[in-house]
């Protein structure tokens, strides 16, 4: 029997988390670059660093954040006043018309700096009504801020919830500042957890979208995050973003110095898959800086330093007209792509089941395979199976060390890159050089340049079919299938 199988399940491509959401939520987030692997190649976001203070300590954070060489949350180069932030936002919006979203994400906790955060939102709601506003918080001060948040153009709030258990919380949060005291251990964590859950409920009651971020910390909250996912879903959060812990000794964080390892790509994927039955999972978060500017994965912050912005003369009314044209153009392009995707669905023989295969893809955007292996700074990983194709994650080519796997001395960039593709059986790119070709083959990741300029999902399914035709995938019996799915 042949059925449409290029796209998994009834809800469209799972490459695109947005497509699984109810219509009223889709409407709010369709042009938000952080919510869709597709949209992030077209729409840009920026963060303004107006919120330096924090009211808690997390073991993955070091408050000595002033480092321009790193790209990770909590890191910024230049703190801004609300007036500067508004000016910068409007300058970026006028120069990068694809910028649809302004977020305040730190470098501390935005709601621990309520004056600066809300003043920025107040001015932008008035002066730049075509920009969506969002904010992320640890949740401690959230209940007191919900009323004010609901007054601005804020369509969603992100709460970082790593646990709902104070004992686990004590291993993540050494202290919180609460009612003029520093409260340590499980007692402090309990307060934080209660405030997070209360704030989440209050936002939902106000009709504000809530996304939940969780940091996956192996051995601390890994199993527990499944429960967190269920709870936040039941309360009404629309998306759960499980991110891998970043911990390096040189960051000077508790986890970094104490040797807490980060999760491997496989561990992250397993947990996201385990939560996915209950919750829309977000899989392409790039964990960007608290002052990032531009498309996800790129940072154009250097073009918009305060000294450069002071010299810019922005006519925002004119900019809004131009921005509208650009946004409409992108919407048309995305709609056309969606149609093309449906027309080009690859059909699989689903009477036989084969095991799923992970494939890496090199792309510079546009939804097609168009990047040279050696130029790829990151790879997108897709899973092909009899059910269709789905987006799994992105992996950085120059990635942080993977968990407890030791990087032997003298490992080349190429060797490191190949190691980040662990678990993938093929890598689809526009071109692959002679040397990496051999090394990839040796590592069991078959390089392939047959699908250059082809749409990603189509190519992944074609290649999966080819692997089946070549006899590379043994047929899986129904019993095996059932046991693999834990039925």
């Amino acid at each position, binding site marked *: 029997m042949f059925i449409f199988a290029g796209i998994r399940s009834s809800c469209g491509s799972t490459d695109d988390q947005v497509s699984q959401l109810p219509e009223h939520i889709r409407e709010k987030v369709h042009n938000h670059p952080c919510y869709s692997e597709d949209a992030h190649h077209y729409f840009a976001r920026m963060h303004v660093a107006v919120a*330096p*203070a*924090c*009211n808690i*300590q997390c*073991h993955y954070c070091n*408050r*000595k*954040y*002033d480092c321009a060489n790193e790209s990770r949350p909590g890191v910024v180069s230049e*703190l801004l006043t609300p007036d500067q932030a508004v000016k910068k936002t409007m300058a970026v919006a006028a120069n990068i018309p694809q910028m649809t979203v302004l977020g305040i994400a730190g470098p*501390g906790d935005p709601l*621990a*700096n309520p*004056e600066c955060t809300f003043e920025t939102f107040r001015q932008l709601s008035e002066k730049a009504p075509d920009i969506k506003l969002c904010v992320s918080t640890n949740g401690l001060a959230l209940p007191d801020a919900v009323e004010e948040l609901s007054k601005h153009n804020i369509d969603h709030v992100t709460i970082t919830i790593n646990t709902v258990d104070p004992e686990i919380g004590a291993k993540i949060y*050494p*202290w919180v*500042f609460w009612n*003029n*005291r*520093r409260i340590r251990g499980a007692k402090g964590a309990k307060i934080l957890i209660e405030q997070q859950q209360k704030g989440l409920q209050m936002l939902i009651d106000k009709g504000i979208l809530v996304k939940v971020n969780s940091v996956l910390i192996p051995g601390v909250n890994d199993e527990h995050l499944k429960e967190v996912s269920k709870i936040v879903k039941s309360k009404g959060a629309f998306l759960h973003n499980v991110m891998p812990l970043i911990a390096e*000794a*040189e960051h*000077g*964080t*508790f986890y*970094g*110095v*104490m040797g807490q390892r980060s999760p491997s790509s496989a561990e992250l994927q397993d947990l996201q898959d385990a939560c996915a039955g209950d919750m829309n999972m977000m899989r392409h978060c790039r964990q960007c800086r608290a002052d990032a500017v531009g498309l996800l994965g790129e940072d154009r912050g250097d073009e918009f330093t305060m000294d450069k912005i002071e010299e810019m003369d922005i006519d925002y009314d004119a900019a809004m007209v131009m921005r509208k044209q650009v946004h409409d153009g992108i919407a048309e392009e995305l709609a056309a792509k969606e149609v093309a995707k449906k027309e080009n669905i690859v059909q699989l023989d689903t009477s036989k089941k084969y095991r799923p295969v992970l494939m890496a893809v090199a792309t510079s955007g546009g939804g097609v395979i168009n990047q040279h292996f050696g130029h790829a700074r990151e790879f997108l990983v897709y899973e092909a199976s009899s059910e269709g194709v789905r987006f799994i994650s992105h992996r950085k080519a120059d990635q942080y060390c993977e968990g407890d796997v030791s990087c032997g001395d003298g490992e080349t960039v190429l060797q490191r890159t190949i190691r980040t593709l662990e678990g993938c059986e093929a890598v689809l790119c526009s071109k692959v050089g002679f040397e990496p070709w051999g090394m990839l083959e040796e590592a069991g990741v078959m390089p392939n340049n047959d699908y250059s300029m082809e749409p990603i999902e189509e190519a992944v399914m074609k290649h999966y079919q080819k692997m089946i035709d070549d006899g590379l995938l043994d047929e899986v019996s129904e019993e095996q299938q059932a046991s693999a799915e834990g039925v």
Partner: protein
Amino acid sequence: MALSIIESCVNCWACEPVCPSNAIFEAKPHFMIDSKKCTECEGDFANPQCATICPIEGAILDSFAEALNPPGSLTGIPPAKMEAAMAEIQAR
């Protein structure tokens, strides 16, 4: 009787709004405490507020120049472990 902020301050602004005496002000290269205004929160709070929210060990001193948050007290990283880690990074 006054507290003081020293160079390890990272200018995070956390202390400034919680001071009941408005004694803390932004300065270069780091925040400062006006010793004439600082009351060490006597009469207002059980603990000095700036040192209670400050995330940086050693950045705020009491009137005897003792750190109110000594090494290891906030991050939980044992000082010896921190030194060893930093020495190893230096050696790379």
